[in-house]
């Protein structure tokens, strides 16, 4: 029930926020995110990282009796890490919005809390229907946050975000439904189940062409969410228009729902198809890295730049996942966390500038290091984390994704090659993706060079104004100091600390991921060895269906 509480507490807090007067909204919301954070810390403390039990905190209850739909929750190391990320970003988003959101606070914080509950739910769900419900339910709070608290073009952005991702995930639902049908029709003699572990086992018995179609259907929703090139166009728009907290959650967690879905559902259901389609998908990932990177380079809106950079970054993440080897997949999962930290922090930094100057255009802003040295320090720091500087978190995951992809090559069969793995990517794909490292340096330094360094440029004819002069023209926001306030520093510091920690000492996380990753790698490897042939159908015996769902150990994941 631990996980259930982590979902319920934000929901209760949301209800409280709605019920209490607006003046109490902030405090309630902060409490509603801090309590789950404390809970997650305790849960992480007690989590069996080392023993490698496949699932912890399993809990299950009946939901829809006839269809075998259950409310089952559980967490393996991957889910746990992503739940931790979600819980960490929760209070940061709330505290980061104290000055940015000054009207309709109850709506804002209420939906933000609902969003957190939904995201935690996705990572904790162990039933396909429950997963889908949470997955879709993230859309509504996000839609409200963008459409009601965004910038000028917010309606269009929110609509596009909603429709685009919704359309994709409907197809995903169809894929899941097919697998569930396949399970009851071919294996369990008419007994339905949506338990993820049961479905994973069942899906392996589908024919190669079934697997391919199901994989593509599952991928449809996840790839839009990631977003995989060329399904990314909703993202820059949504990010640019979203309020800061919305962008942080969007980049930090919502995009990871896509890669998590691929990791958790798409690949385990159809490992053979995943392996067969990997070359094509890797081309899309590399195109995303390079094209989105170059597009970043010619942006003038800082937020749009960082938004496009997410497309490029997630390209690395997908590439690592497609390597289907230990280093690549571990790197990819680390990437999900690291990208959430560094890009989330970059969005916070940009939001702080927007609150002060009401613009994000590099044509109007420049040289802010002179007036905001503390902010500039954070901005440069997180830019470096984002660009993958060794010693910070981004490097560990980016390098591992590339290394995994480099290893994954069928031509490495030569016995003199000591660390090659079977796979579909190889050095050429990796070298092309690696060019993305140069492009990343180009656009990030372009942004830093324009906004942080250079001659001071402030909007509204304040150019080269004496920095300490009084009455600096943002009288309306007199509450905000010129440089960062203690609250703002407090919001950024935990993220910075996490970036350093994961950059210097990622070993505990790597160790924790060993077993779940091994399961995925093995399932793909077995599929390769079967040569596209489905696994033989188990003899159906009525009544013997895995009913303890949540607690069920997913095959290939132990």
């Amino acid at each position, binding site marked *: 029930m631990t996980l259930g509480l982590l979902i319920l507490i934000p929901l209760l807090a949301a209800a409280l926020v709605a019920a209490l007067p607006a003046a109490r909204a902030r405090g309630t919301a902060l409490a509603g995110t801090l309590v789950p954070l404390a809970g997650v810390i305790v849960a992480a403390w007690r989590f069996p990282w080392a023993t490698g039990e496949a699932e912890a905190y399993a809990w299950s209850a009946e939901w829809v009796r006839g269809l075998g739909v259950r409310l089952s929750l559980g967490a393996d190391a991957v889910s746990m890490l992503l739940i931790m990320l979600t819980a960490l970003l929760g209070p940061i988003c709330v505290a980061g919005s104290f000055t940015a959101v000054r009207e309709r606070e109850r709506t804002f914080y209420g939906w933000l809390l609902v969003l957190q509950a939904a995201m935690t739910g996705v990572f904790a769900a162990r039933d396909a229907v429950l997963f889908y419900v949470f997955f879709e339910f993230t859309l509504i709070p996000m839609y409200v946050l963008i459409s009601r608290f965004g910038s000028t073009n917010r309606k269009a952005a929110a609509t596009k975000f909603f429709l685009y991702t919704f359309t994709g995930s409907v197809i995903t639902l169809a894929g899941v439904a097919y697998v569930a049908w396949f399970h009851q029709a071919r294996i369990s003699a008419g007994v339905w189940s949506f338990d993820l572990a049961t479905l994973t086992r069942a899906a392996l018995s589908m024919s190669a062409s079934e697997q391919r179609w199901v994989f593509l259907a599952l991928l449809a929703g996840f790839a839009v969410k990631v977003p995989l090139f060329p399904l990314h166009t909703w993202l820059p728009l949504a990010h640019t228009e979203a309020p800061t907290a919305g962008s942080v959650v969007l980049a930090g967690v919502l995009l990871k729902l896509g890669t998590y879905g691929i990791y958790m559902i798409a690949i385990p259901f159809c490992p053979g198809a995943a392996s067969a389609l990997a070359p094509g998908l890797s081309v899309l990932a590399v195109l995303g890295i390079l094209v989105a990177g170059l597009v970043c380079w*010619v942006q003038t809106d800082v937020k749009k730049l960082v938004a496009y950079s997410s497309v490029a970054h997630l390209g690395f993440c997908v590439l690592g996942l497609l390597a289907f080897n230990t280093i690549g997949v571990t790197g990819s999962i680390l990437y999900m966390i690291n990208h959430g930290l560094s890009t989330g922090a970059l969005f916070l930094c940009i939001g702080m500038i927007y609150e002060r100057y009401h613009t994000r255009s590099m044509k109007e802003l420049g040289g802010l290091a002179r007036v905001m040295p503390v902010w500039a320090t954070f901005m440069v720091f997180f830019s470096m984390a984002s660009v993958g500087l060794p010693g910070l978190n981004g490097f560990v995951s980016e390098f591992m994704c590339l290394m995994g992809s480099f290893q994954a090559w069928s031509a490495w069969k030569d016995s003199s090659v000591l660390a090659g793995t079977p796979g579909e990517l190889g050095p050429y794909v990796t070298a092309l993706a690696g060019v993305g490292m140069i492009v990343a340096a180009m656009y990030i330094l372009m942004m830093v060079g324009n906004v942080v360094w250079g001659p001071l440029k402030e909007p509204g004819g304040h150019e080269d104004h004496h920095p300490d002069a009084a009455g600096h023209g943002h009288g309306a926001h007199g509450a905000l100091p010129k440089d960062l306030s203690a609250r703002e520093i407090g919001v950024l510091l935990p993220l910075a600390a996490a970036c350093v920690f994961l950059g210097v000492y990622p070993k505990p996380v790597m160790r924790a991921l060993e077993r779940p990753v091994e399961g995925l790698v093995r399932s793909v490897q077995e599929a390769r060895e079967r040569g596209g042939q489905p696994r033989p159908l188990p003899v159906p015996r009525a009544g013997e269906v895995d009913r303890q769902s949540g607690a069920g150990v997913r095959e290939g994941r132990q």
Partner: protein
Amino acid sequence: MSDVTTGILTALGGVGTLAASGGDAAAHAPASGGALPAASPLVLLIPLLPLLGCVLCGLCAAAGVRTKLPAWLTVACLGAAFVAALKMLGDATGGPGTHATIAHAFDWFRIEWGKGPGGVSRELVANFSFYVDTLTCLWMLFVTGLATLIGLYASEYMAGERGPGYCRFFAAFNLFVLSMSCLVMGDNLLLLYLGWEGVGLCSYLLIGYFYQKPSAVAAAKKAFIMNRIGDLGLALGIMLTFVKFGTVEYAELFERIRPFVELARHGRFDEIPFSVQLIPLLFTVGAFGKSAQLPLYVWLPDAMEGPTPVSALIHAATMVTAGVYLVARFIPFYVCSDLALPVVAWVGTLTALTAATIGMAQFDIKRIMAYSTVSQLGYMFAGLGVLTSTGAAFHVFTHAFFKALLFLSCGAVMHGFGGQLDLRKLSGVRKMPGWGIVGVCMLVGCLNLSGFPLLTSGFFSKDMILAQAFTTPGFAAIGWILLLTAGLTAYYTFRVYFRVFEGPSQFEPGDEAHAHADPGDQAHAHAPAGHAHGGHEHGHGQGHGDGHFHPHAPGWAINTVLAVLAVCSTAAIGAYFIDRDHHGWVGRMVDSSTAAWEAPGAGHSGAHAEPPAETGHGAAPGTFLGMDPHAVMYYVSAVVALVGIGAAWWLHLAGRTAAATSRADGLLAAAGPVARGAQGKWFVDEVYDALVVTPLWVLAHVFHLLDKLLIDGLVNLAGWVPRGAGRTASTGQNGLLHSYALGMAGGLAIVLVVALFMVKN
């Protein structure tokens, strides 16, 4: 101060020991460190002390310190690190054998995925562990030593910046030494890569120190991106190494490369797999980026936008030699490819020549020094390429001292004359009151750089490379080009000296003397104005605005550092004469490390049991016009250096009466397009702009348009259909809800189809 140092040392010693013992306990893992013995935990102090310095400087910034405290903290920490490096050297050379040792701090990367053939566990292990052999010691010795000295120099040089800028400068300075120690001391390729990119970051931060100057920001960006291009090569090289050899740890790597080295020794390159031969070439790309070689050298001259101490430490003495370190460390990999070393040698040689020709025609003394750095780095690579890793390392060693000396002398001039760097606007500085030490030190530096015979260490180190170039079969052309370059070097070096330090005493102060117009703007003074503040310090800064500029001579810190460096660069000659069995002290350091390689034709020293390498497929050693190059090169290079100096004297000193003009002006006109080409730096930047940057920029815009119009257009088109339908279905309502409903309906439809399918079966 010494109390503080001892205190810090003791405290850190405790921490270091704890970390080491804790790490050992945690990681009694099979592959960690291989069979190599553990080094003294004191080694860990070398990276820890700069880290401490960095943190302390950061705290100073947070606390709003406006004194020179950050500088003293830096000097104390780096000085202590130097002492630790000395101790490390003592340990490494003191014992009976000269085996590498490893100091383990803590784990970084550790991933396993089962067992490979032969029960070898397949894993990626890369830790914060430090590999100590004599090559490490050699490098760390001059890195920490020079960093301490230059930190002391900077305490005075940057005095006008006291406040947040001063803290920022010294924090980055410490971070640089930390990164450099990871680069040089790392026991695996990933830690090397960490240092490699870390020094790049520090270089970026320090080049862009005067961040309000657009040119400084642009230069910093260029340096970082150019380096990243090289870094990609290195990263791919590391990945290939890992995939091929299954490890990135040196101890294992140098074991596993051995069979291939044996093959190479017998010239059987066709039996060495292509992937193994590719590794050194990929490393080379990284080395050329970091060490500013063709075609990636263009960032280094621009890097002179940084404060001079930075130019001296990072862009002359230490960071840019990282590429040389990489090649020297991985010499066993380089000899496994019949292409890698010739590429290194030729690129180095051509870089040496190109940079020297550009340096001859420039007027900015700091840029001339920058081009001379590029050129001298070319020498080092040429030395590596012709297989005298000793010569290359020795040149790195001597160059570190004399180039730091030259930069710091130029910096003193720049500091004193309001940022003036144009050699046409300064003359006879040596004879001005208070400038004697700078003048003498500059002379020592120039003599070293031009390879003045016998009195200078630069003469001996350059000689070693030149002689080997003629000896190693097949590289005589390189020898001739390097010899020509040596003459050019002597010319452009003394062009600077004779113009700026000799002749009639005249000067014109630089722009920065006038930049101090706004006295109220102290807290956030313009960077250049900072120097003028320094002027106030010494009581010479009065009346900046009214045309009466008084140069202020350097104070004790700058003079002391210059004097020490002058002595060091001369004393480095000694290193050539100690241990003649090993071609000098540096040779001994190199020979007992992984960089050891017997230079072809030099097997007469008798100190080595190994037979000479047969890179030339058994060809006989080359000669210099029929004579033994090692014997005759002393005389030849001495003559060449003297001719160059003489030419500079005739063209730039003899009979010169004004700062701005000299005999060379006439020559310039005669040289016509050649001179213009050299002055325009052979227009390499312009070519890169036209061939790479502009097309890329256009491409990026095309992609952006395609993204907006085509990809997003298609999406919008698809989105229109349901929305249009929704609009027609009911007017006056938000189309969104209808689309949502339609989407839901679509989803349901699919589910229904599936359900039907199910029923049919």
